[in-house]
């Protein structure tokens, strides 16, 4: 998978023995490891934008990766404002870009 560290000089193979799961990002099929934060799986798949802000429609992505900044929130399985850096990935998850507080682009809201 792109963006993964296949072999690390100190940590070795970090994702050995982890189960690969399939999830959807804006309708596109992607793969990640079960239990890793959704944000990590998205990063490994090259996704940079997690949401657009409500008022100014500005893009946001991973910023703190420890659940503090809320920049990484997305619509997960229909629920908005899910902090993807803290939420474990599971088989079949539906992850969508969040526009304001919705998964619909602004021109469709």
């Amino acid at each position: 998978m792109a963006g993964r560290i296949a072999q690390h000089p100190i940590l070795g193979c970090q994702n050995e023995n982890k189960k690969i799961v399939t999830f959807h990002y804006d309708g596109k099929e992607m793969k990640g490891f079960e239990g890793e934060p959704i944000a990590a799986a998205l990063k490994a798949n090259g996704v940079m934008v997690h949401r657009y802000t409500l008022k100014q429609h500005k893009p946001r992505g991973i910023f703190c990766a420890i659940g503090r900044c809320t920049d990484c929130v997305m619509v997960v399985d229909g629920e908005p404002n899910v902090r993807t850096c803290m939420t474990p990935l599971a088989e079949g998850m539906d992850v969508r870009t969040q526009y304001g507080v919705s998964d619909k682009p602004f021109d469709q809201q």
Partner: protein
Amino acid sequence: MKIERFDLIVVGAGPSGLSAAIEAAKHGMKVVVFDENARPGGQLFKQIHKFFGSKEHKAKIRGFHIGEQLLKEADDAGVKVELNATVAGLYQDREVVVRMGDEVHHFKGDAIIIATGAAENMVLFDGWTLPGVMGAGAAQTLMNLYGVKPGERILMLGSGNVGLVVSYQLLQAGCQVVALVDAAPKIGGYGVHAAKVARTGVPFYLSHTIKKAEGTDHVTGVTIAEVDNHFQFIPGTDKHFDVDTICVAVGLSPMSQLLKMAGCKMEDNPKRGGQVPIIGEYGETSVPGIFSAGDVSGIEEASSAMIEGRMSGAVAAEYLGYITKEEKEEILAKLKASLGSLREGMFAPKNRGKDIKETEEGIPISTNLLHKGYVLDSEIERFPGVTHKKGVHPVIECTQNIPCNPCQDACTRHCIKIGSHITALPAVDETADCINCGMCVASCPGQAIFLVNEDAGDRKAEITLPYEFLPLPETGMKGTALGRDGQPLCDAEVTRVRSSKAFDGTNLLTISVPAEFAMKARFFKAAAQA
């Protein structure tokens, strides 16, 4: 409402919180530790480098291994660690409100220790909210906890130890670091941390900062420019880099909100990193029974955080009558000496902001090290770790007074002398014979030790250097030797590669170079990479 009671409640399962809990539980107290994270260890679990200090501070052990040791100790001592448990409130009567999942629980502690650590600071620049701009801590979390590269081409802002260490870790993860930038005129972190980044070829831009992060949906580039003494941009000094990621490491601020909420007297203390509680020598706040330890009471190190944790644990144990005053004094005396030795040297809290020009030994500091990240060929000879002798001998390029001495302990032949004052510069004793065992090279957390044979025959010199990257070069491989400045110097051939359990992940690469480069060649790039 049910309120569960504990002798001691610790908030934060980082090095300070776990140490406090271990100390208290050892004396028979009923202890619980709450941490909002899914894994315990705080900052330690992202630290994959070897730590400074001396043996008693767990020097030369990698941070995450120290974390594992602490967890085991906590477990053995019967400490209960509650994860995914965010402490949302702390009141003067020592009641603690904890959010666990969707539920809110209430606890009461006869004593409370706050060890919540610190949060990363941010700086504002044009485009700072673009996806691709992230905290250095976020980058560390992605690569060291989840095995994901934070980006491919990265610019690091901040030259403190965090910026330096994370830059090195990004290189280890296989990312490219295009530049290390800091608005300050001097590198803030340890020279040895800077030098190990500089020798791989990463350029340092001091007195520079970010003007603009470029890109519409995410970062595609960055422009930096030089700043004057008043941190104003100097026209005509713009430099552009194509990057996909910008990491920001501009300091940490204590997360002291809970202490404030509990009514502890606070102060704004820039030397300690911001809003901190006013505390006694062992972490006693102004509210009886509430203590603080670690970064929350002043940004320092994991090594000092562990000692502060032990201290507050012992003080809490005496406060509740689990140990006598005499027992407490005995424990504290030992810990105090250990903490004191860490708080010496050029980077000690008391020296923050001071312009230090000479080492304790009276040797002028390398100004190039402070500005560019490496000691010049013309400066290196003045340091006591750099000597010349026939045969293989250690060359120690550790040129600032930092609390560290694993090199001295590593050498059973007594080639390396620091003495009992651990911030002294390491000196090489030319009368002792080096047996080329490599232990000093592998145990130096600063990767500052090289084994040099200035005359290996055939007008060649051999240099052994620490190497923590992949792919690991093989014997016979040809490539280029780089200088301390990371610039190509000459052809080099790998003549030996050593890896061993005792070296703990640090490989020893021996390269052969023309003899005139013996004191210059300090890194190796394989032919394909050069």
